């Protein structure tokens, strides 16, 4: 269920993204819009990943942040969004959408330790 009026800056941008199993898989780091002057503007995708948010930093820090956090970027089509509440919920699992990759990498390291669940 999507609300009728959606303020994409207040209600979508910088909100947490959760997948169909309610697992956090990033933030809405940027939003992709489509349209021409004089025509309607449409949200086409959510952009998730350091490649999106580092571009929003003051230019002096952009390069440094990109070097530290990488430029990984995942485009999640707007049609994948199931609902927008406090969190933005997606219809599929994180891995199917290419989200949460860094966590799966880290899981390989942490998973080697005894008692990691």
């Amino acid at each position, binding site marked *: 269920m999507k609300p009728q009026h959606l303020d994409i800056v207040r209600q979508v941008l*910088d909100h947490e993204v959760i997948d169909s199993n309610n697992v956090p898989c990033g933030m809405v780091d940027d939003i992709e819009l489509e349209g021409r002057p004089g025509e309607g503007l449409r949200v086409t995708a959510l952009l998730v990943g350091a490649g999106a948010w580092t571009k929003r*930093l003051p230019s002096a820090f952009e390069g440094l942040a990109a070097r530290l956090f990488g430029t990984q970027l995942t485009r999640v089509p707007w049609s994948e969004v199931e609902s927008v509440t406090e969190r933005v919920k997606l219809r599929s699992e994180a891995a199917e959408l290419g989200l949460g990759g860094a966590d799966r990498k880290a899981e390989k390291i942490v998973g080697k330790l005894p008692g990691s669940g």
Partner: protein
Amino acid sequence: MKKFVEIFLGILTAMGGFVEVGELVFSVNAGAKFGFHLLWVVALGTIGIIAFCEMAGRVAAVKEQPVFNLIRERAGLNAGLVTLVAANLVNLLTCTAEIGGIALLWQLLSGWPYRWLALLALVFLLAVVWILSFQWIERVFGLLGLLLCVYLGAAYYLRPDWTQVAAGFVPNVPRLESSSEYTLFAYFVVAILSSVLLPYEVYFYASGAIEDGWNPSDVNLNRIISIIGSVLGSLLAVALMVCGAQVFRPLGVEPQLPGEAALAASMTFGKAGLLAAIGGMFFAFAGAAIETALSGAYNLAQFFGWPWGKFRPARKAARFSLTWMITFALSALVIMTGVDPVSVVEYSIVFSVVILPFTYFPVLVIARDKELMGEEHANGRFANAVGWFYLAVITLAALAAVPLLIATRGGKG
């Protein structure tokens, strides 16, 4: 009954988790230098920490969302990032100070080299956080930290002049001999305020509320725990200051190390008092080290949308788990370079206060936002007034902190 137990445990853990190495060292030292004249600063700080813990806990309970998620949503990416970097630098610094404190205590007991004990402390902390659940971490370290209550007894048996103690709670500046003494007094005002208001406590408390599964019905539970827990916790700080005034001031000694503070307990209760004091300090420092490391991991994970929490298996919150491990490791490494642990404690307290406004401002802005919190749960006029007042106080303290650190040559006067 279950609710009662929860409240009781919450209060005790808040109380036991209140004291950390900086607060201990500064409280005892403040008593030794200025008698009871700084007690009002503890009281001032306590009301502030209550106000901000209550707000952060209420936000977490009402939104069932941690504070750093909301900071990013509301303050935006850039301002949020400033808060994140500031908060996590102080977490790292505080964690380093606590590990240094643990190593010093163990050195006192064993006589082993300090650096290797820091390594041992690292292994201990990693193992404890890895093995224990969040609830057990809270209970073990919160409750055993209550061994510090030995100082309540010590303060009583040291027979301070209670009218003078009471007078210390009224804001005052004592008559001092020179202007440098006044500067030193101002430095202690800032340091004590900072030690009571350390920012990790607020964020840890709010994330803990989510770990414990709080929801809007827990708003009153939050209020009771944050108020009573903090008041009882700061009673310990008061007792430490009274002990400093009664034991060290007449001798003209300035206790710098945590071990020296333990002497105050041993003078009244002998060997048992000494052991209780050292045990209490150990659990308080280790508890604070754990809280700061976890707090750093919570903040990062919430800001970037990683799966987080001790309630998840470590494997399922992998980056979160790696973050607290790395925080412990970096902190222990700093101590192992051989830096003076007392200086680390000083710096952790002074730099905390510098960034305090950045970490508390967003909490206030979110808690007062009626659109976000709803009419019922947003700050009322009273909470807003208290919030803005403390923001002004900590901003002043933040501006004064570094000049005072330099002017007093790190509190040496």
